């Protein structure tokens, strides 16, 4: 018996030692002078969401531009967990620290879970900024993003403009409790609170799943055939092809149903062009990468300092400017400003 104890204890000591030694190994040194090559880790919430790929392309584009301009070469390291997972993301950050990157731009899966890994990086001399999704209590130097609450308010304003000041409205969200989605809904609800004629009759969720999104939208149409407005807090069901949601499509085309959705992806632009959607509120995905890399570069190379929150702005798309937006997606060039979404409505 004592032998077994001894073996167990010995193994435990070995494992501990390995952990401690392994943890101590790379003493990431702070860089007093600007190195010749900057490696910036650009970490999205997950690798399985197409909007992050737009951001990634923006980041690569900026790195290319900066490298071409010289003198410092910039390389972007695109890493992340496959699915949204706060714990997995923390590991990804630690890996990036271990690799000795020069800067990190990250979209946090969870504001609290992000604090520790970010602070570890900053303590190791690696400047960190957040984009898209913040971790306000960490030592990141700035947050580039939209105010989701304001986004929700903008969606409410769009809805009222197309639907009028009264009617029945339903909300579709992804996962109950997701911070950004909850903020958008809070903004939306505050936005329509000014109009007592508008009533929210249903809030449904789809687990971030296209199939389930299609189902619950149709079921809600079934339960409320007289629905006047929808706010899709994300674009899930819109990934499905025409014909998937016959009730919703019919109401949008023939019964004046107004749908406002978040995000401005090409699939949604198609729906908008065809008259199923009336308004879109979107983040500047391109800027998540394009602007973040520029900001980290400025921070390190030029010693520039930023406010705690940098507004990335929002894209509002209606039939007035949908063609311009579509053109941007087609060319991959998001640098031009978007025309006034309300210009043609007056």
């Amino acid at each position, binding site marked *: 018996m004592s032998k077994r104890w001894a073996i167990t204890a010995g193994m435990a000591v070995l494992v501990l030692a390995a952990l401690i030694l392994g943890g101590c190994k790379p003493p990431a040194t702070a860089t007093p002078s600007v190195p010749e090559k900057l490696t910036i880790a650009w970490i999205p919430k997950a690798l*399985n969401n*197409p909007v992050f790929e737009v951001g990634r392309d923006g980041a690569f584009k900026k790195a290319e531009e900066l490298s071409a301009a010289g003198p410092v070469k910039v390389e972007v390291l695109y890493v992340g967990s496959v699915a949204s997972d706060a714990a997995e993301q923390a590991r990804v950050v630690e890996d990036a620290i271990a690799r000795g990157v020069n800067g990190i731009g990250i979209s946090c899966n969870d504001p609290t879970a992000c604090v520790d890994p970010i602070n570890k990086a900053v303590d190791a001399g690696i400047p960190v900024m957040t984009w898209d999704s913040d971790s306000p209590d960490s030592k990141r130097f700035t947050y580039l993003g939209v105010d989701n609450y304001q986004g929700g308010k903008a969606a409410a304003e769009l809805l009222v403009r197309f639907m009028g000041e009264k009617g029945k409205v339903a909300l579709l969200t992804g996962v109950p409790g997701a911070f950004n989605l909850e903020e958008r809904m809070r903004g939306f609800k505050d936005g329509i609170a000014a109009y007592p004629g508008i009533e929210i009759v249903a809030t449904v969720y789809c687990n971030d799943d296209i*199939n389930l999104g299609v189902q619950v939208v*149709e079921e809600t149409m079934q339960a409320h*055939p007289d629905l006047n407005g929808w706010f899709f807090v994300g674009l899930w069901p819109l990934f499905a092809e025409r014909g998937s949601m016959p009730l919703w499509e019919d109401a949008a085309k023939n019964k004046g149903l107004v749908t406002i959705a978040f995000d401005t992806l090409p699939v949604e632009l198609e729906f908008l062009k065809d008259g199923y959607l009336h308004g879109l509120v979107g983040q500047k995905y391109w800027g998540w990468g394009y602007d973040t890399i520029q900001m980290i570069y400025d921070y390190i190379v030029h010693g520039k300092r930023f406010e705690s929150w940098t507004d990335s702005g929002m894209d509002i798309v209606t039939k007035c400017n949908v063609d311009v937006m579509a053109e941007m997606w087609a060319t991959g060039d998001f640098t031009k400003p978007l025309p006034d979404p309300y210009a043609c409505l007056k």
Partner: protein
Amino acid sequence: MGKVNIVGTLSSGNWRRILSKQEFGVFLILLLLVGSLSLYTDTFLTPTNIFNVLRAFSWIAISAFGQCMVIITGGIDLSVGSVMGLSGLVTAMLLVQGVHIPVAVLAGLLVGLIIGFLNGLMITAGKLPPFIATLGSLLMARGLCYGLSGGWPVRDLPLAFRNLGQYDLPIGNVGVPLPLIFMIILALVTSAFLSRTVWGYRIYALGGNETATALSGINTNRVKRMVYSLCGLLAAVGGILMTARLGVAAPTAAQGYELDVIAAAVVGGTSLKGGEGTILGVLIGAAIMQVLRNGLVLIGVSAYWLQAVQGLVIVVAIMLDQVRKRRR
């Protein structure tokens, strides 16, 4: 001799008799659900909604048929959700490349069959526990989804393909969704397969007692490989139908559906210990799951409470069924 005759007539309708007994409890629960929903809402019992429910549950049910067979052998297949996603994605990617529909669909089915066969191989030749083997293929198949698609959903699928999932076949004066018809056909085929073929007998025998079955001179490894292959194939059918219905193949499609599929089988009376379960039961189980979710949305249960209510009803349903079964 008269006694023997009575015994004879009793045994003739025996299969059916025992089966109907087994499924009676869950069927009552389904009736109860449907009945109360029809009373509480005026939207549940409309043709559009019923067909909507039936369409949506058809691919879960089809995948659950395969899962049911696997569970009868005493195993489990966690990879069905990923297989649904991957086979739909492969089909869609081929379609976008301009491959003919039948070829693309066959390729998608083949993907499911191959993953299923590999599961079987890992379990028999590799001697891995089913849980581990299929957990591995769950991750591998999902990873392939991301890798092949680069994270983007595949869209713009040809209309003829989408019709597989969206077309309503006019029967009388109602339009019956095509996936539902596929499901009914597959239910009949798999049910007959399980109850009428040599393979079916062996599947039940294997799940009831693997040692005794092997000692009866039956190659149990072959039975297992076949069952996992079929499970993969049926999951592929489900995945392709779902893709056709949505007109899009997302790399995340059907993520987590293995739990819905397993739940459908288990709610339908398939015993996780093996040896017990029927296709009719699975069908009822899948229907309960779908009707419940649909009903809760129609009633207007808030998104924040929906899952809790769903979980509660499922647990209570299975408990009621257990109480009925025990009676000792």
